[in-house]
C-alpha cells in the first residue's frame, strides 16, 4: 500500500481563535475571553476574566461551552437576570483591536486513520506495519511502503525502527470554505514508558496469548 497522495502535507497554522469557532454558550463566553487574540478593550478583557471565574452551570465543568444561540442558553439567561456580579479585576494592558474572522477556520477531519510502526527505513521509503484505527482494529494487519517525502523534515530526522505514527487521510476545510483531500503522517510524541507500563504490557500480552483466538 502506498499513500494515496504523494504530496507531503504540513501542519497549517490555523490562526486559531477556537473560542470563537468551536463551542459556545455562557461558559463558551468565558473561554472566548481566554481565547480572544487581543480583545479590543481592557473592559472586555476584564469582563472575560470575570466570566471565566464564575462557576459553570448545568454540565460538568470539564465540558467545553456550548455554542452561543442568542437568548437560548439557560446560562445566558441566568447571567442576564443578574445572578452573578463580576468581581473586581486587576488592570490589564491595552490590547490592539482585532477583527474576528467571519469564515470558518480550517479543520481537518479524518475519513481513514491508521496507526503504524516503522519496521525498516530505506533511502527513499520506509516500511511499516499498520493497524486500521477506523475499522476498530487492535492488531496490525497491513503492511505499507511509504515514501520518506510523506514525512515532515522534523519527523524524518528522528524516526527510527519502532517509531509509532498516525497516518490520516481526510478532508481539510480552508478558511474560505474550500475542501481538499489531505494525507498526513504524524509521528506520536508518546510519554516515556514506565515500569508500570511494561508490566501492564506484559500482562496484556499474556492475556492475548491465553485467549482462545490467539
Amino acid at each position, binding site marked *: 500500500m502506498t499513500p494515496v497522495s504523494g504530496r507531503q502535507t504540513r*501542519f497549517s497554522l490555523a490562526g486559531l481563535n477556537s473560542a470563537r469557532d468551536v463551542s459556545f454558550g455562557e461558559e463558551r463566553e468565558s473561554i472566548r475571553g481566554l481565547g480572544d487574540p487581543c480583545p479590543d478593550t481592557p473592559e472586555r478583557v476584564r469582563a472575560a476574566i470575570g466570566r471565566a471565574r464564575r462557576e459553570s452551570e448545568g454540565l460538568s465543568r470539564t465540558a467545553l461551552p456550548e455554542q452561543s444561540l442568542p437568548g437560548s442558553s439557560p446560562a445566558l439567561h441566568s447571567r442576564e437576570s443578574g445572578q452573578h456580579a463580576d468581581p473586581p479585576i486587576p488592570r490589564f494592558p491595552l490590547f490592539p483591536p482585532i477583527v474576528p474572522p467571519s469564515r470558518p*477556520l480550517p479543520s481537518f477531519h479524518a475519513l481513514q486513520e491508521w496507526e503504524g510502526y516503522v519496521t525498516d527505513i530505506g533511502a527513499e521509503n520506509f516500511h511499516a506495519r499498520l493497524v486500521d484505527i477506523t475499522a476498530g482494529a487492535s492488531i496490525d494487519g497491513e503492511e505499507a511502503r511509504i515514501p520518506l517525502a510523506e514525512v515532515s523534515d522534523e519527523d524524518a530526522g528522528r524516526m527510527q525502527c519502532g517509531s509509532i505514527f498516525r497516518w490520516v487521510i481526510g478532508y481539510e476545510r480552508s478558511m474560505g470554505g474550500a475542501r481538499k483531500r489531505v494525507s498526513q503522517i504524524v509521528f506520536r510524541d508518546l510519554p516515556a514508558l514506565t515500569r508500570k507500563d511494561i508490566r501492564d504490557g506484559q500482562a496484556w500480552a499474556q492475556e492475548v496469548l491465553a485467549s482462545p483466538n490467539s
Partner: protein
Amino acid sequence: MSRALRIEPEIDAASIVLLGHFNPSILTPAWFVHHCLLPADAEESAKLHVAHPEVTSFGAEWLELHARQDRFVAETKRSPHIRIRDLVLRVFGEHLKHTPISAFGVNRVVHYRVGGPQTRDSVCRTLAPTGVWGAWSDALGASGEQGGMTSLTMTQRNPSGRPPGGRINVTVEPSTRIGKGRDGIYVAVNDHYAIPGEDAHSSVRMVDLLSRNYEWSVKHSEGLIDQVMSLSQEGARR
C-alpha cells in the same frame, strides 16, 4: 480508536479539559518548546493571545491551549486527535507531576450539515417533540423558524469502569456556525472523569485514567455522534 462518521463534519474538534490548580504564566509556547513538547519553530510561529498569571492562551499549528488557574484546556481541530492525549500525558506525567487535578473531560464537538431546514427540524422534533407541550405546541409552530428545540442535553451518570462522579453528557443543538444557521446541527460529547479526593493532590491518577480511557472515550463519543447523525438521514427520508 476512531470510526468514520456517516456525515463529514464541517467543524470537527476534540479537547481535553483538566480541572485543578495550574500556573498559567509558565504554560507559554517557549515552555513547551523548551521541554520538547512542541517543535522548535513553535516558539516563533505560535500565536500567543495572552500570557498572564491568571490566564494563558495560544495557538500553535494543531494545538489551541487555554489555561486558567483552575482549568487547563488542550484543543485541536486537526486529526489525528490523539496528539492532545499524548501532549497532556507528557505535560502532567513528565513535567508537572505534582499538579493537583480533581477531574478531567474528554470532549468531542462537531458541526455538520443535514441538507436543509426541514431535515433539521425533523431531527430536533424527534429529540424533543413539540406535541407533548399541550396548548403551547401550537405556538411552537410547525417549523424551527417558529419554535422548538434550541438545546438538549442527555446525561449518563457514573459510567462503569471509572471512579464515582463520572458522567457522559451529550448536547445537541441547531448549529449557529454553519449553513447560515439554518442547515446544521451541533453535537458535543463531554466524557467527564472525577478523581477521588485522596488522589486529587497530584496528576498521577489523571495520567493513569486518561492514558487508559482516552481512546475508548473517543470511540464511544463518535458512536454517540453517529447515532445523532443517523436521525438526520432518517429525517431526510421522511
